[in-house]
């Protein structure tokens, strides 16, 4: 009924053949494909990591550059502001000084002119007085009278605004 015979050997041969066939046609290709995919995935993962690192580095660099640029621009603006302020002040000061100078000059000119006019007038007046005096002397030859007349005249003509009345 139950017997062990050559079929045992046949089965062993069958198993070995099946093993080789399965290895060749099923496990071999499938495992090869799976390993290949794993390899590609690993590679891509590594590449992605590398790219990310590089991107992070670049971002840091750009951020730094941006920060320094911002600082630079701030500094420049500040400097420009200071400069503009200083210049404006300088200009205003110069203008004020100029104005002061001009005013002083004008005053000086006016006073000088007035003095000159005064001197001229005094000379004129003196001359006129001498003339008048000589005329009076001619008429009343009295020294006292002469002197009094002169003084009076001077008093009258001393006021520049009144010299037209002479």
């Amino acid at each position: 009924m139950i017997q062990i015979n050559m079929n045992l050997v046949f089965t062993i041969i069958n198993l070995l053949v099946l093993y080789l066939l399965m290895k060749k046609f099923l496990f071999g290709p499938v495992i090869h494909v799976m390993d290949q995919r794993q390899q590609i995935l690993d590679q891509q993962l590594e590449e992605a990591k590398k790219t990310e690192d590089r991107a992070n580095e670049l971002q840091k660099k750009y951020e730094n550059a941006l920060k320094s640029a911002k600082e630079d621009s701030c500094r420049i603006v500040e400097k420009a502001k200071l400069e503009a302020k200083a210049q404006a002040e300088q200009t205003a000061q110069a203008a004020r000084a100029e104005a002061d100078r001009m005013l002083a000059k004008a005053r000086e000119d006016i006073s000088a002119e007035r003095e000159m006019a005064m001197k001229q007038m005094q000379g004129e007046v003196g001359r006129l007085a001498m003339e008048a005096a000589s005329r009076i002397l001619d008429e009343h030859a009295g020294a006292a009278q002469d002197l009094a007349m002169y003084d009076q005249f001077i008093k009258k003509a001393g006021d520049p605004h009144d010299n037209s009345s002479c």
Partner: protein
Amino acid sequence: MGKQKGGSETNSLTEVLKEELNCRTVFTIPIGNGIPVFESVVVTWVIMAVLVVLSLILTRNLTVMNPGKKQLLLEAGIDALRKFFRGILGEEGDRYIPYMMTVIIFLGVSNVSGIFGVKPPTKDLNVTLALALMSMFLIEYCGIYKKGLKGFFKSFLDPIPVMLPMNIMEVFIRPTALCFRLFGNILGGFVVMALVEFVCPAILPIPFSLYFDFFDGFIQAYIFVFLTSMFMSETME
């Protein structure tokens, strides 16, 4: 009268069981006294052919990128088996994994082949004994490969030299246990199925068939390779 009737039924049941237990000779190779080729071997050939054809169909158009549904399923299955064996055998057992996968696929298909109307090859003691002998050689081979011939023989004295006879017996007990466990389970399932079909040929056999043909079939295939790989990892330790 009733006894007479029961007797005849018992006789025919015995006939059925005898027929189920017996392995039919399909043909005889005319060498010497003639070598009988059993049904189990022929069914194994058929299973091998089916497996190879299926493999060829399944592994057609494998792509590394964008695999199809068929390929994904195939890869998931093979990956699960690979992980299972790697978990037991460890990294150094990688070279034995294809054989173990072959055995589990062959056993799974064989044990279930009963539902296609053929006798499962694993119902023949020759087949299970062949499988067990292969397992035995593999177990001892991987021990020798790992430890070298000297280390392998030395391991028979572990943990103490008194255990030497036990260790030697173990070499033969392991495959015997594997062989008879598989054979007994499949044969037992087949006999129970025959009984059930004898009593009630309709409806009732369906749940029994689900259990004995599918569940038990896969469980036995699983146990066989599980124990073999356990013994292998034990020997490699």
